[in-house]
């Protein structure tokens, strides 16, 4: 035979032998080393949205599916999937479930940059985490700092900084809790959206009313006017109204509570609409030098 032909034959033959050998080994290994996986886990993973957002508290959708199938987690934890997904998962596994609601992030502060008192100019690292370590840059030690740490961590573009205040687009929010962890002041929390509109207390200041008025034009002064018309839905804790989201709010006219509020710290935040704008508050806060200036003397 011709030398070229033999070379071609040899090359093709050797590759063929390697291929067949490897195919046999891998095929045998596939059967011999087969790890049985629960078909339910695969089924549940396919139902889940696959966003891997971590809102349920597990690393990814596959981990959550495994936990649900093993009975370590309820079927209702998936935020992005909502009620539909929970129903399908429960149907697949033959579980009974209650109702589930999408959890969305809300900011418990309503003061824009002009509405809260700035004390000392801050030129440090432009993040909330760093600014929060420096005392005395902002009158209100509870409220939004406005450097946008939450905006940076949000993967869904749901947070905008508007006039130095974090504003959350609840339609885009998937409830992944990234912003809740990022906020050094802990003013972002997750709230179940049981209805289209949810009543939210947009202030976190636990001080007495007089002190709040000195540092913020919109903060809650703790007057507890909102609690009376709310039929026990709102309670005062640490001079702040707290809405009980476990309670059924149907049949209670929450607009009465909002109308009673002399400030701007109780609003409806709703899906598919903008936040209601409050009425008649001053646009800008002026410092009250008698109370808000740090009067400690430097003694070396």
């Amino acid at each position, binding site marked *: 035979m011709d030398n070229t032909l*033999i070379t071609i034959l040899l*090359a093709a033959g050797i590759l063929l032998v390697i291929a067949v050998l490897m195919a046999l080994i891998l095929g045998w290994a596939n059967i011999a*080393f087969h790890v049985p996986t629960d078909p339910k886990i695969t089924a549940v993973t396919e139902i889940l949205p696959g966003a891997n957002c971590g809102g349920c508290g597990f690393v990814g959708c596959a981990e959550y599916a495994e936990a649900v199938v093993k009975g370590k987690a309820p079927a209702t934890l998936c935020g992005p999937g909502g009620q539909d997904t929970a129903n399908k998962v429960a149907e697949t596994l033959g579980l009974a479930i209650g109702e589930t609601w999408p959890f969305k992030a809300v900011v418990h502060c309503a003061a824009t940059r002009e509405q809260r008192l700035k004390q000392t100019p801050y030129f440090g690292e432009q993040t909330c985490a760093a600014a929060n370590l420096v005392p005395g840059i902002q009158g209100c030690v509870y409220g939004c700092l406005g450097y946008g740490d939450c905006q940076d961590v949000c993967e869904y573009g749901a947070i905008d900084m508007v006039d130095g205040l974090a504003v959350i687009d609840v339609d885009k929010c998937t409830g992944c809790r990234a912003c809740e962890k990022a906020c050094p002041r802990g003013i972002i929390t997750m709230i179940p959206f049981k209805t289209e509109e949810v009543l939210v207390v947009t202030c976190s200041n636990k001080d007495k009313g007089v002190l709040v008025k000195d540092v913020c034009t919109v903060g809650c002064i703790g007057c507890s006017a909102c609690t009376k018309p709310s039929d026990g839905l709102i309670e005062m804790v640490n001079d702040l109204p707290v809405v009980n989201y476990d309670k059924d709010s149907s049949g209670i006219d929450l607009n009465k509570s909002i109308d009673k509020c002399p400030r701007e710290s109780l609003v409806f935040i709703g899906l598919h609409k903008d936040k209601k704008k409050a009425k008649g508050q001053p646009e800008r806060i002026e410092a009250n030098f008698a109370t808000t200036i740090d009067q400690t003397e430097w003694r070396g």
Partner: protein
Amino acid sequence: MDTIISLFLIFIGAALINNFVLHYFVGICPFIGVSRRVDMAFGMGCAVTFVIAIAATLSWTLTFYILRPDAPLSAWLWKALGGNPDVSVDLSILSYIAYIFVIASSVQFVEMYVKKFFPALHRSFGIFLPLITTNCAILFACLEIMKNLQGGDQIWGLHHALALSVGGGIGFTIAIVIMAGLREELELCDVPKALKGPGIALLVAGILAMAFMGFTGVDRGVADAIRTLTHN
């Protein structure tokens, strides 16, 4: 003694002086992709060392017996098929495809084995295995071994191949762990927006590579020292 010195030179050469990542710039994808945290980087380094050792063993065997010029098995087949005995048979052209073939399937096999018998190990380290199947650092090691089996003054044995691959794997681990340590600190720095992420990582890798240039010549010096000591 000469064998030990040559093994030592190959090992140190692959680990430090001609570091795969910082001298040849192969294996950059895992180097940039998995160097965010030191523990992950170390896991990746171990996986690469392991896979590179397996790949080197298999490809050395394949090359030595079949692919290199005048390899025993292919020469025998050549004669059996009636080829011209004066012409030497050379199947080196098959090296790329054969290596990718063998490495990919052996890594797949190892992954199945680990998944079945060491589930805990698979959870922590198995995810890296498919990532580095025939990654360029591993293919580079195999081709380097092939280069030294082409004939010439020294034909490498399996021990040389293993010294190169394990040295290369350890060099990769050193590089990626240093890089991960740097990048953990880098997280706290004020990096210009345009350079964030891979951009600054590549710049740091470049500076790191310059630092590793300082090892140039170390191998010769150490080898000469050992030789002088043993001869006296």
